[in-house]
C-alpha cells in the first residue's frame, strides 16, 4: 500500500506545482495538466481508501491516518464537483496543496493500525451516512473558505484600485460570491444530514440522541454559525465581504471542531484521531 500512497502524494504535489504554474502563466494547457494530475492522484487515493475499507471492513476513518486521508479525498472530490459547476480554475491552487499537505501529514502515521478496537461501534448504514455526510460537508466548507479568501483578495484589489497580478488572475466578485454561497449551502445541507444521522445512530448505540459530548457541542455550534450566515444572507442580504469573512471564520471553527476537540478535549469521537 505504501508505494501507492507515495505515488498519490507525488501526484498531488505535481498537481500543486502545475496549478501554481497556471496561476502565474495563465496558460490553459498547464491548467489541464494540473487537473489531470489531480484526477490521477484522486484515483490512486480512491484505491488506498477502498483497500483500507476492504481490509478492515469498516469505513476507513478509524485512526488519524485514515481520518486525514479521507478528509483529503473528500476535499478533492468536492473540488471536482464545484469546479465543474462554476469553472473556478484558480481554486485548484487551493485544493491541490491542501490535499498534498493532508496526505503528507497523514503519511507520518500508520495506516492500518486500529487503536483500541471499538467494539461498541456497529457498522451500519446510519454510521456510514453520518461519516460521509460530515466529511463531504466539511470539504464543501473548506471550498467555501478558499473561495472566501479569493473574494477578499479580489475585493481588496478592486477597492484599492490595484489592477495588477491578483486583479487579472482572480474571477469576478459576483462569481466568487455565488460559488461561495453554493459551497456554504451544500456544506450546510450535508452537515445537517450528518448531524441528524449521527444522533439517531447515537440513540441506537448509546440510547441517547444527545450526550453533551464536546464534539457534539462544537459541531452544533458550527452548525448554528453557518445557519446564522445563511439566514442573514437570505433575510438582509449578507453577501460579499461579510459572507466571505464568515466563511473563513466558520471553517476555522470547523477545523477546531474536527481536530482541536479530539486532541484537547475528551469524548467519544477521540479514538478516530489516535494513531
Amino acid at each position: 500500500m505504501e508505494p501507492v500512497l507515495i505515488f498519490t502524494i507525488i501526484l498531488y504535489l505535481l498537481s500543486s506545482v502545475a496549478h501554481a504554474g497556471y496561476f502565474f502563466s495563465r496558460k490553459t494547457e498547464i491548467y489541464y495538466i494540473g487537473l489531470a494530475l489531480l484526477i490521477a492522484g484522486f484515483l490512486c487515493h480512491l484505491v488506498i481508501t477502498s483497500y483500507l475499507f476492504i481490509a478492515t471492513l469498516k469505513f476507513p476513518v478509524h485512526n488519524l491516518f485514515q481520518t486525514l486521508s479521507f478528509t483529503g479525498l473528500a476535499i478533492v472530490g468536492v473540488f471536482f464537483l464545484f469546479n465543474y459547476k462554476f469553472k473556478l480554475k484558480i481554486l485548484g491552487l487551493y485544493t491541490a496543496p491542501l490535499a498534498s499537505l493532508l496526505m503528507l501529514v497523514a503519511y507520518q502515521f500508520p495506516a492500518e493500525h486500529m487503536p483500541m478496537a471499538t467494539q461498541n461501534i456497529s457498522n451500519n448504514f446510519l454510521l456510514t451516512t453520518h461519516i460521509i455526510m460530515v466529511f463531504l460537508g466539511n470539504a464543501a466548507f473548506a471550498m467555501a473558505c478558499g473561495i472566501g479568501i479569493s473574494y477578499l483578495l479580489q475585493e481588496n484589489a478592486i477597492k484599492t484600485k490595484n489592477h495588477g497580478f491578483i486583479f487579472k488572475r482572480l474571477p469576478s466578485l459576483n462569481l466568487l460570491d455565488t460559488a461561495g454561497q453554493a459551497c456554504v449551502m451544500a456544506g450546510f445541507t450535508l452537515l445537517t444530514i450528518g448531524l441528524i444521522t449521527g444522533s439517531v445512530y447515537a440513540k441506537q448505540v448509546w440510547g441517547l440522541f444527545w450526550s453533551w459530548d464536546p464534539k457534539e457541542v462544537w459541531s452544533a455550534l458550527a452548525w448554528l454559525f453557518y445557519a446564522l450566515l445563511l439566514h442573514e444572507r437570505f433575510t438582509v442580504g449578507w453577501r460579499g465581504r461579510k459572507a466571505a469573512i464568515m466563511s473563513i471564520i466558520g471553517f476555522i471553527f470547523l477545523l477546531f471542531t474536527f481536530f482541536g476537540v479530539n486532541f484537547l478535549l475528551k469524548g467519544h469521537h477521540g479514538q478516530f484521531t489516535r494513531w
Partner: protein
Amino acid sequence: MLEIMLLGINHKTAPVALRECVAFTDDETRTTLKNLSDTQAINELIIISTCNRLEFLFATDNPDLALDIIKKHIAVLKQPPETEFENSLYIHKTDEAVRHIFRVASSLDSMMVGEPQILGQIKQAYHIATNNNSSGVILNRLLHRTFFVAKRVRTETGIGDSAVSISYAAIELGRKIFGILEDKKVLLIGAGEMAELAVEHLIRNRVSNIFVANRTFERGAQLAKKYKGLAIRFEEISSYLKTSDIVISSTGSPGYVVNRKQVKSLMRKRRNRPLFFIDIAVPRDIDPAINHLANTYVYDIDDLSGVIDENLKDRAKKAVKGERIIDEAVIRFHKWHESLKVVPTIIALRKKMDEIAEAELKKTLHSLGHLSKDDARAIQRMTKALLSKIMHDPTRYLKSEGCFGDKSLYLDITRKLFNLDS
C-alpha cells in the same frame, strides 16, 4: 518572380488633414482595384484604408513602374498637396513589406498599440480584394499568414487584454465586479460626452436598462431617446439608485451629487447588491468615502487613468514580445516566397523523384538476387530514363515564359501536388 511591395502613409508619417484627403471609400477601393489590376505592372493588389492609414500592398515584377502607376493614380484621384504627399510616403520591399503588414495587423503599428479594430479592417480589405479578383497566390498566402500571425501575437502576448481607454477600463472593472454586464441597469447622472461614450460601450455589452438624470430634463430626454433609455428628474436619483447597478456621473456640480449617508441607507434596501460608481466629473460628483462601504465601488477619473497608464506600460512590454513573433513569421514567409522561384522548385521535384526511384530500386533489386550485374544495371538505366522522360514536360513548362502571366500559381501548385514543402 513577383516582388512583394508596400506603399503607404499612416498616422506616424502624415497629419490627419493629409490622411483625410487620401482616404479611400469602399467604392473608390473597388474601382481602383479594377483599374490598377488591368495594368500589366501590378499582378496582385490589396488596398487598406482606415482613418489612420492608407496602404497599397501589391505583387509585381516591375516595382518601379508599379510604384509610379499607384502614385499617379492617387494623385489624380485624390489630388493631395504634392510635396507633402510625396514626403509622407513610405515604401517597403519584400521582407520589409511582409514585416510591415504583419505589424499593422498585429496592431503594433497602431496609434493605440494593441487596439483590436485593425485586424477586422484588414480582413475587410482582403475581402474586397478577393471579390474583385485582385489578390493572387502570393497575397492570398501572405494575408492568411498575416491573420494567423496577428492572432498569435494577440493570444500569446495578451497585448489587447487590458483596457487602455476610460470606457474600456470601466467595462473591464464592471466585468470583474458583476461577472457579466448583461441585464445590469445603468444610471447616468449628467449627460456629457464622456458619459455617452461609456454608455455606447455598455450597450455593446447588452446592459438592460439605462436611466438618464440631467439638470435640464430635455437634454437628458434626448440622450435617453438615443439609447432607448428612460429620462428621469434630477430629484429622482435617490429612488433610481435603489435599482441601478452601475452609476456613471459627469455633472458640472461643484459639490457631491451622491453622498455616503445616502448610499449607506440605500445598501440595506438593495439587500447589499453591489453598486459600481464611475465618476468622470471634475470636481467629483460621488463622495469617495462611498468606496469604503461594503459592496460599493467608486472609481473617479484619476483612478481610471491610473489603471490605463499601468496598462499602457504593460502593452509596451508585450509589444516587444510581439515583434519577436513577427520576426519569426517573416523568416518563414521569406522561405516560402523564395521557394516560388523556378529553379529551386525543379530541383526539389527532381530530388524527390530520385529519392523515390532509389528506394524502390533498392527494394526490387534486393529481392531479385538471381539477376546478373548487367541486368541490374539495365534496370537502373531504365528507371533513370523513365524519370527523365516523366520530368521533361513539367520542367519545360515551368521554365517557359508561357505560364499565362502568373508563374507563381503553377509553382505553388507544383509544390503542393508533390508535397515538396513537408
